[in-house]
């Protein structure tokens, strides 16, 4: 874990400041431009599937293999292959300009039942608190993802940066 990630170590999720310091998290200007990956990995452990899976070489770890992944947003197309490849489920793809009023957040999902496209959900932030309403727009399940589904959720533009999970409407709060 990087030295400064005190919030992560104490609470279990990254603070705004810790996120901004990560080499895999692009700035707001980049996110506003279009579909792009956000790598919320603060873990100095030997791991590099994100680097290997990226067809555009947009993700670099290099040597030693314990370095944090860095993202070159000019190469990233937002294809999302890295979402399912990351064993830590720490990668999200944001599309700020999905529509005039909505953006999308794509994330790994390894629970059942899977949501269906069109399903209304309650979105959650990194700490698990409700953010607002969202709508599942796509569920990708292909063999290369090895039983990890990638779910794309449409949310109001203003919440794209904060939404990182969701619960189905029938599911109680925890």
């Amino acid at each position, binding site marked *: 874990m990087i030295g400064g990630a005190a919030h992560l170590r104490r609470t279990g999720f990254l603070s705004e400041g810790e996120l901004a310091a990560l080499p895999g998290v692009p700035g707001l200007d980049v996110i506003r431009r279009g579909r792009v990956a956000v790598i919320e990995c*603060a873990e100095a452990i030997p791991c590099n599937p994100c680097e290997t899976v990226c067809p555009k070489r947009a993700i670099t770890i290099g040597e030693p293999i314990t370095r944090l992944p860095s993202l070159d947003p000019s190469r990233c197309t937002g294809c999302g292959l890295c979402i399912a490849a990351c*064993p830590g489920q720490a990668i999200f793809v944001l599309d700020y300009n999905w529509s005039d009023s909505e953006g999308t957040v794509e994330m790994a999902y*390894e629970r059942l039942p899977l949501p269906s496209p069109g399903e209304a959900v309650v979105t959650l932030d990194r*700490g698990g608190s409700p953010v607002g309403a969202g709508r599942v727009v796509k569920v990708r399940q292909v063999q290369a993802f090895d039983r990890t589904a990638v779910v794309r959720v449409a949310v109001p533009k203003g919440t794209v940066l904060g939404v990182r999970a969701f619960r189905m409407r029938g599911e109680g709060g925890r």
Partner: protein
Amino acid sequence: MLEVDFACVGAGPAGLGAASEAARRGLRVVVVDENARPGGQLFKQIHKFFGSAEHGAGLRGLDLGRRLLDEAEVAGVEVQLSTAAWGLYDGQTLALSSEGGVRRLKAKRLLFATGASERALPFPGWTLPGVVRAGAAQTMMNLHYVLPGRRVLTIGAGNVGLIVSYQLLQAGAQVVAVVEMAPTIGGYGVHAAKLRRWGVPILTSHRVTEVSGRERVEQAAVVELGDDRGPVPRTERVFDVDLVCVAVGLTPLTELCRLAGCVMAHSPALGGWVPAHDEDMRTSREDIFVAGDAAGIGEASVALDEGRLAGLAAARDLGHLSDSEWAEARGPVVERLAALRGGEQGARIAEAKASLAARVRVGGCGP
């Protein structure tokens, strides 16, 4: 009495890795394991493993287990399951027991890849049905498809506690909290973040004071700890739960090493008392190797490569590999292990291992 070249106790990643390497070089190899199924803890691990491409990164534990079993079978390894190794005679003869009775197995080289045991945590109510350790919860869920509880409190925010809590969520349970005495989370941040965003609180600087219930677990009481590590008044909270899952660390299983008179050393970084061993996993006894969690708590990929080193050294000892063939086969494994021990946590383990190797060189015999 059966006599073989190489006998491995434990059919987890370390034992299977060692056995495959040795058998592939022509040694007659037998692996014994007291469990009914091979694979050690691998088949309980349904998540994708960290690692590099050479380590099969992104592979789920259960799939790595299948791959290792296939490899061992192709190499000609004989695996004897439901077979406990409970004694050692003449330094080289294992005493085994299984349903067929008691028998002996003599081997020119031995590997103890016996894994680890989970630490226990005593608190009022810890003997109530419904207090289980993480391994038991995983066995019930992931091997037998039985949900061990519906509302769960987990004790311990190391990697095991975090991973098991996530698996409990996946199995359909509700995890009301993960409680950790230390002021910080010991496990990887990504595992913690997964739990947090799906709504599971992680309470650092908290301790379980009591678990209660008439015939089984019904409630767990938790209190916050202050800077002096003592309970903060009026912070007690009670959770209604039917399962308390304890994940407070692992310690190497070293009985056979002690029986063999291997030099032991205490290493907090490796989980407690471990047999001293060199870079090739050889203990202070020339004919005995140790690998995996029994040689210091670590991850499956480390155990696998430690096993491979032991298997290669055994093959060289018995003349099945020349010095140059051995060096060629060993090189990439040593490199992979070094890469796995990069990073802050890995460096501490590498340091502990180096000091153990020094003990073997000075070592000599017996504790």
